[in-house]
């Protein structure tokens, strides 16, 4: 096993162990936060809600 491989294993192993430990700790310490409605991932919106569209009402424009 060459040096870059050892470094890679150490980095990946270190990060994985950190994330797994953190997840386990969170799992045992977190409380339930009541009945939250899950948010929808996809929604159909209106274009004008977010972007400027040329042709917006005239008195809404800026000089």
């Amino acid at each position, binding site marked *: 096993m060459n040096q870059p491989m050892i*470094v890679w294993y150490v980095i990946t192993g270190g990060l994985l162990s950190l994330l797994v430990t953190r997840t386990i700790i969170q799992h045992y310490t977190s409380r339930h936060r009541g009945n939250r409605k899950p948010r929808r991932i996809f929604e159909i919106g209106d274009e004008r809600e977010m972007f400027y569209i040329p042709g917006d009402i005239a008195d809404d424009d800026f000089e």
Partner: protein
Amino acid sequence: MERIQHVQGADETAFFLADYASWLSGCGATCIRIEKNTRRIAHAFGVDFDISIMPAHVYVSVWNNDGSGSTGTTVRKTANCGISFNLNARLSRLSWEVADKHLDFATTVKRFDKIRETQPTGKWEVLLLTSLANASFCRLFGGDAIAMLIVFLSTLAGYRLKQVMLEDRRDVRLTFLCASFFSAAISGGGHIFNISATPEIAVGTSVLYLIPGVPYINAVSDIIYRHYLCAFSRFLDATILTACLSAGLCAGMLILGLKWF
């Protein structure tokens, strides 16, 4: 656009509009969007209005031209709600509802309060979708299936680290540096184990999820509409984050002994 009869004081209106603008600014809207939406609401409420948007604050002045001499000015710090297109869309929708459906002031405030309670998208959904998106980037740049898998896994690990560090309120620059370092190092596995035909694309695209695209785009929009202070602030913020992620990427490549060119 028909004006609603003005029944609330200028102070109250200024207070609400400043709150509204600060939330819009906090969720990642451009200055022109903040101005247009806020002006739309003020016009619908039948008041005259002006707004000054600074990088960290908004100043709103409202006055009535009906001879009452009623005026109001409010300063609000930009809301710390994080970039959210969902919030941005809902706030913009509210401004159109006020203008089109002639909502009264109390209803508008009530709806605004409800919008403020909007929950962010679930962190696991974001984690998964970000990893898939970054793997798709790898494909766009010509990476093979194994490189895509490597990018997916390195993004999964790096983005999760980013979430954990931000939850712990670590400095955002340090967070970007660490996330890019680990993503780059993990994606370097393709080179080290010789398991992909395009390992360099995997390393290059493994940190793309950290590019602060929204501040860059907003900076350009702000320059176009001559909001130079906000534009400069956003651009500098984005540049610093980009420098941090570049440092992390270089450190990852350096520590694994990968050739830069």
